[in-house]
């Protein structure tokens, strides 16, 4: 066939190493690899529990970083080295390697695909600076990992417990006045990406966001993750921000499991 599609039938991957990132975020490294690009996701299946999209943290070996916040992620968090999960993918689009200097803006555990990008970017000679935004100090993760990839790191917390006091977008606005960037890449809460997209548009800097909606199929057919007709799982998650900004949905409402609109 003429269009690339990804087989979606889970295979067992074995956990080889676990790193604790903070009070609720863990990174699982697996014995297996999953050739993939920064911004793509895998579907992770826990038999008898659920199957969820997880942002890929690294491809060789495959790894995922996640916060234990819901039924699925808590069950996942309880697994140990040697345990198996079902994995299929990679799915979706990825951050492009175009600009020479990129500003990465991650909210909460939205930093995961951006760190993956920083790692790949370093090999390609792309300079990255990272803004990590969170509610407070204890939610900041990956600052050391970004530094390891040669990134200058800027931290923003809502309560000012560390770094800049205010939102990641406010910090980005400040930084963009002082320095020139070719592109802005973002992953995190939708309202953060929405305001950042508007900022990027105002400053005429190409901005890419990782748009998310409740996902079911992961292969662009069931329609659950529609963002004004764009399937986040296949047309995204990484989209140039003009696309979501042109919809009636982005920054306004998401949809629940049944498809009902839920306002932000």
């Amino acid at each position, binding site marked *: 066939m003429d269009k690339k599609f990804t087989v979606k039938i889970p295979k067992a991957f074995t956990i080889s190493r676990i790193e604790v990132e903070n009070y609720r975020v863990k990174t699982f490294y697996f014995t297996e690899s999953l050739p993939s690009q920064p911004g793509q996701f895998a579907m992770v299946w826990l038999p008898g529990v659920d199957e969820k999209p997880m942002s890929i943290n690294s491809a060789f070996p495959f790894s995922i970083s996640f916060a234990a916040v819901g039924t699925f992620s808590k069950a996942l968090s309880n697994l140990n080295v040697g345990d198996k999960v079902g994995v299929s993918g990679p799915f979706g689009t990825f951050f492009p390697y175009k600009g020479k200097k990129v500003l990465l803006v991650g909210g909460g555990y939205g930093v995961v695909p951006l760190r993956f990008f920083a790692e790949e970017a370093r090999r390609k000679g792309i300079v990255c600076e990272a803004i990590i935004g969170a509610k407070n100090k204890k939610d900041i993760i990956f600052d050391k990992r970004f530094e390891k990839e040669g990134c200058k790191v800027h931290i923003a917390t809502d309560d000012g417990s560390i770094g800049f006091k205010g939102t990641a977008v406010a910090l980005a606005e400040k930084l963009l006045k002082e320095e020139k960037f070719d592109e802005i890449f973002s992953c995190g809460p939708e309202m953060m990406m929405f305001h950042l997209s508007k900022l990027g548009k105002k400053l005429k800097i190409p901005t890419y966001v990782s748009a998310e909606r409740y996902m079911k199929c992961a292969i662009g057919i069931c329609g*659950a993750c529609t963002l004004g007709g764009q399937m986040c799982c296949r047309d995204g998650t990484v989209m140039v921000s003009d696309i979501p900004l042109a919809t009636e949905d982005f920054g306004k409402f998401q949809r629940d499991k049944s498809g009902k609109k839920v306002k932000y």
Partner: protein
Amino acid sequence: MVNLQTQLAGCKMASPLVLASGFLGLDWASLDRVAKSGAAAVTTKSCNLEGRDGYSNPTVLANENYMLNAIGLANAGIEHEIDEISTFKKKSQAVIIGSIFESSPEKFAEVAKRISTAKPHLIELDLSCPHLGGKGFENYKDFASDPKSISEVVKATKKATKIPIFAKLSPNVPNIGELAKAAESAGANGITAINTAGGMLISADFQKPILSNKYGGLSGPAIKPIALKSVYQIYESVKIPIIGTGGVATGEDAIEMLLAGAAAVGIGTATYHRGIEAFKLIESEMQHWMEKNKSGSVKELIGKAHE
């Protein structure tokens, strides 16, 4: 130039290509995108009165040969559907088919009556979801499994609306022609065939069924022969038009479906294998085939394999 035009119960279509129900049909924007990508008609995701969350993941599995799904008829309910269809009608000239399901003939009639306020061009009755259960559907029986049940649902919905009714049938039966006949006798204006074939996948790695619902519906290239046989048999049994659906991935597949007796051709799983571009690709492949085979119009191909 070949003529791709066709008709379904008086509804004129620029080509025979129809987006099958269950694919991308959650909101008007997705349906409009599919219409702009070359579908002459689009079918909404099936809806019922109250809406449903559907099943937990895994709900969809797929490879190069097939797709297996047990989404579980997730939908936001009839009010949401009315909004989406009404908006679509303001934005697009394409034909829109409203797909509905429920647990009794009376409830089917109620959804048909309500959806008619949004004025879809056609209404499709999902009589045969092969994997339905859950709240309100504990004792759900497949309406498409016997002529009496089909007849009851078609009669009830016909009384509730003036919009033409298409009955969507299941291949999981011994004689689909008889069931199509029952729908026609009860007043159905057309048949959609086939719904997915029952199936399951088991993980050797985990020694367990993969779908959370265990069983699902199989679609894609693997079921094309089943779909062709069903459409062929239905064409022998009824005079009303058929939307032939099941495993159509190329222009040649679509031509085969017309030859079996379909007046229009449903496309679903091909959007996985070829992307939303599938509609334009299939349309252009049909044109090439028709030019090469000196076939002037879709109309003359319908049912030609029966001659």
